[in-house]
């Protein structure tokens, strides 16, 4: 039977028994795909209390119905499993870009569900319907780049590979699964390692079918391309341009005359990038100078990214100086793929000759990024660097490491900005050498193990957002309570840009408020930067929209660093976007007509399922107090120079306020239809969305509210 959007097949692999079989995707279609379906499978099959490294845990690589259709920005892979760095091993998803998910779809699979544990290192070889579990003994111990090359040498140069490095093999909590040159999914590397699964290779000859005609599909693509902006859907250029009414130096739309991909052969000028010019969409986001400073222009070969994305937000650099350090000159990444490692060199970076300055920072940073990407070490959204600094400055290392181990660490390199510190740091972490390596356990576990007190959690510079051990990630600095509340609802750093792709558009605030009013019911949904107001229902709607859309994107799969399209760069559209695009693409692809509201409700149901699973894992219905609280510093007023408090909601302050946040939680719970006291899903809500079985199981465990 022909399926549209979906391939119709889930690949199931049991590494303990070696059995490989397929299951029917469409029996889970009410959970959309990707993350939604993964939540359902985990709910059904992995009991709460399972350890992430136990064979009974499952790890699910998910694509969705839009993956492989060519819809703009539809190349992401969702990975769902239990998270080793979480205090209660919370269910969580990580994501990687690149080309893996589309290859999986063309090979004929919507998801891969992996369980069990192989007796010895293996890799999974997928070539359309031929799926084999292969011996990985010669790959085990290799870095991720070599591993991918080895798989491709077996399968052919077109194979796309997901792999772990030594960090994942050694069950480091903060480890990644990676694909391609620069795409990392943070947190689940050890889960693959615990299963003795080194890599997954996919080679395909198939296709993805859509219900609509090719003509209609290309028309919708063309419409979306007219609305799309730059990275994070910023729709304003960073410099004044003749075609633009506005400009903003903080914008990722950095393309302009005189700005080049300097290491291309010949150099490629990014140019004016008029939003009507469809052949310059991929030139708008010259991310290298955004992430690394002006000095990165000359190193930039091109911008890269994920399958079927025109934006290209990964900087691909050639840095010849890396060869002095014994590394290959080619390095690529984006955002925290750079700043995470940079944060490890917490006292700055000097170059080979001892100079500081922008180029020194770039070369040194690239060493860290290369090593992290090869060993497969995660940064916990840059938290690892802050934890390192804290533990050094507060003499925690002096206390917990033996004298010999302490003396063996090249602290002088760290203090002097010598980037060769990275070689020592990443090796210790990836191979779990010594007590020091526990810095990569995750903040909660570090705090436990090394008895870090309350001042660790309440240090504003430490940026820990919740007691789960995750940092700020577009939190109170992103739309006041909107970002602050979004960050409370995940079991990891929130990985949510639904709100950023609107708040960060760089349009004038008055215009954004107008648009917010159209989407959420009132301009009060959006506060001006640092001019914060008290909580209101419109902000709660904005929070729900953001949480729901993130789940939706991770299920379809679409890139949550671009979608939703709340705004556009077009003056003739008065900068309005189209938030119904997800449902339009979904309807045309699958043939199952879904309105914007209906699709959002499906995603809300998936998000509620994640909530229900979290309740089972935490064994409490009171998520408000056990899960959704921030640490103290976000709700503490700033101090003026004379030491007096600056009250929250004073212009210039971005601090939140305790009771206001509690009100915010209540309002968000209400938006979702959950119990307003605890934040737990109610039986009536669960039954209304077809999750009666979930309600029954929660009730049996005494975990339904009221």
């Amino acid at each position, binding site marked *: 039977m022909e399926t549209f959007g979906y391939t119709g097949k889930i690949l199931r692999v049991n590494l303990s028994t070696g059995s490989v079989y397929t299951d029917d995707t469409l029996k889970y279609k009410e959970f959309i795909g990707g993350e939604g379906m993964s939540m359902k499978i985990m709910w059904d099959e992995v009991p709460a209390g399972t350890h992430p490294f136990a064979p009974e845990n499952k790890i699910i690589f998910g694509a969705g119905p839009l993956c492989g259709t060519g819809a703009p920005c539809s190349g992401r892979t969702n990975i769902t499993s239990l998270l080793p760095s979480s205090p209660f091993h919370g269910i969580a998803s990580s994501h990687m870009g690149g080309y893996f998910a589309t290859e999986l779809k063309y090979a004929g699979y919507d998801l891969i569900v992996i369980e069990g544990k192989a007796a010895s290192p293996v890799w999974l070889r997928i070539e359309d319907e031929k799926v084999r579990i292969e011996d990985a003994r010669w790959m085990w111990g290799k870095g991720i780049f070599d591993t991918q090359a080895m798989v491709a040498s077996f399968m052919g140069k077109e194979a796309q590979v997901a792999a772990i490095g030594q960090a994942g093999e050694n069950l480091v909590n903060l480890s990644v699964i990676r694909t391609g040159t620069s795409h990392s999914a943070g947190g689940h590397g050890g889960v693959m390692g615990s299963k003795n699964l080194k890599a997954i290779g996919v080679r395909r000859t198939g296709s993805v079918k859509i219900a609509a005609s090719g003509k209609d599909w290309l028309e919708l693509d063309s419409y979306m391309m007219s609305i799309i902006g730059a990275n994070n859907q910023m729709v304003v250029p960073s410099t004044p341009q003749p*075609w633009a009414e506005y400009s903003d130096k903080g914008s990722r739309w950095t393309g302009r005359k005189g700005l080049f991909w300097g290491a291309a052969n010949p150099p490629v000028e990014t140019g004016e990038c008029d939003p009507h010019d469809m052949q310059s969409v991929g030139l708008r986001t010259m991310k290298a100078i955004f992430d690394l400073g002006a000095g990165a222009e000359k190193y930039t070969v091109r911008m890269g990214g994920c399958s079927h994305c025109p934006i290209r937000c990964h900087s691909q650099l050639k840095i010849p100086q890396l060869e002095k350090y014994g590394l290959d000159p080619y390095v690529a990444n984006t955002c925290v793929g750079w700043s995470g490692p940079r944060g490890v060199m917490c006292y700055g970076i000097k170059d080979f000759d001892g100079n500081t300055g922008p180029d020194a920072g770039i070369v040194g940073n690239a060493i860290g990024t290369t090593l992290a990407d090869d060993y497969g070490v995660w940064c916990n959204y840059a938290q690892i660097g802050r934890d390192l600094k804290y533990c050094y400055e507060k003499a925690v290392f002096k206390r917990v490491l033996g004298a010999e181990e302490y003396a063996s660490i090249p602290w002088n390199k760290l203090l002097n900005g010598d980037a060769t510190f990275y070689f020592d740091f990443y090796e210790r972490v990836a191979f779990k050498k010594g007590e020091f390596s526990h810095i990569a356990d995750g903040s909660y576990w570090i705090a436990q193990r090394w008895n870090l007190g309350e001042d660790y959690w309440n240090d504003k510079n430490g940026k820990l957002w919740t007691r789960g051990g995750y940092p700020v990630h577009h939190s109170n600095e992103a739309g006041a309570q909107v970002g602050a509340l979004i960050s409370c609802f995940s079991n990891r750093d929130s990985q949510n840009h639904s709100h950023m792709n609107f708040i960060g558009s760089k349009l004038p605030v008055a215009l954004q408020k107008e648009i917010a009013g159209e989407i959420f019911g009132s301009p009060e949904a959006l506060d001006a930067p640092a001019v914060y107001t008290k909580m209101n229902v419109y902000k709660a709607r904005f929070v729900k929209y953001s949480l729901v859309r993130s789940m939706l994107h991770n299920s379809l799969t679409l890139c949550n660093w671009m979608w939703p399209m709340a705004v556009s760069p077009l003056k003739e559209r008065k900068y309005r976007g189209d938030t119904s695009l997800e449902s339009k693409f979904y309807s045309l692809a699958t043939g199952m007509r879904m309105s914007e509201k209906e699709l959002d409700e499906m995603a809300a149901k998936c998000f509620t399922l994640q909530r229900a699973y979290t309740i089972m894992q935490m064994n409490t219905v009171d998520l408000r107090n056990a899960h959704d609280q921030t640490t103290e510093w976000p709700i503490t007023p700033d101090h003026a120079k004379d030491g007096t408090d600056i009250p929250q909601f004073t212009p210039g302050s971005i601090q939140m306020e305790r009771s206001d946040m509690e009100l915010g939680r209540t309002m968000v719970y209400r938006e979702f239809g959950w119990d307003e006291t605890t934040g737990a899903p109610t039986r009536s809500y669960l039954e209304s969305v077809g999750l009666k079985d979930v309600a029954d199981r929660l009730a049996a465990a005494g975990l339904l509210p009221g």
Partner: protein
Amino acid sequence: MGVIFPNKKPRSAEAVADSPGAPSPAQPAHEPPAPAERADREAYALRLIEFIRAESSGGRLTSLSTLASRFPTPEELSKELGFSIASVIAEGPDASDLKKMEGSSDAWYFSESTITGSYALHLLRTEEKDPLMLIAETVRDESRIYPRPTDLTFFTDPPFSMNERELSQALERMELRPDMSDIKRCAASNGATYLYSTKYLGETLAETLAEWIEVGQKQNP
């Protein structure tokens, strides 16, 4: 190996509504010219209009004085009662995309199809050769529209491209101007200097925003 595909400079040909450019003053009424003369008048207007559009495609304004020197008016037309280049353009073939801005000593044209009113205003202020007004007015606009303080490097980068000496001299002189007393400075912790207008932004907010732009955004990628 040469460049295969040199960068294109495509421009949208769509006319765009609602330019914020300065309105042109009312043209003096006069009798319409006779048919034969009208053809010459139209041909002349078309040359002017096409030149303005071509310049606009290149991101440039066109002044009335430039038009007058590049396209000397034909004698028959210059004898018309109430003749002006501006009226020729205004009454010429459809030029609804053309906008006119009055400067202190000249007037400036652009096509809205290829330059927005905001950008044209930046260019106009540069053409006026009054760096103090350029800085003050731009800072006031930024403080009002976005609202945000303005980084000093905004003025040394295109399209203003002031040099450092020009900029620092202008800033010193501005401090002596009572009509510019609303323009204040603030600094981010990395040393970057910003300007803001107290008409639209308070000191604390301006400082907070400058710090966010310079430091906070980079710490929250």
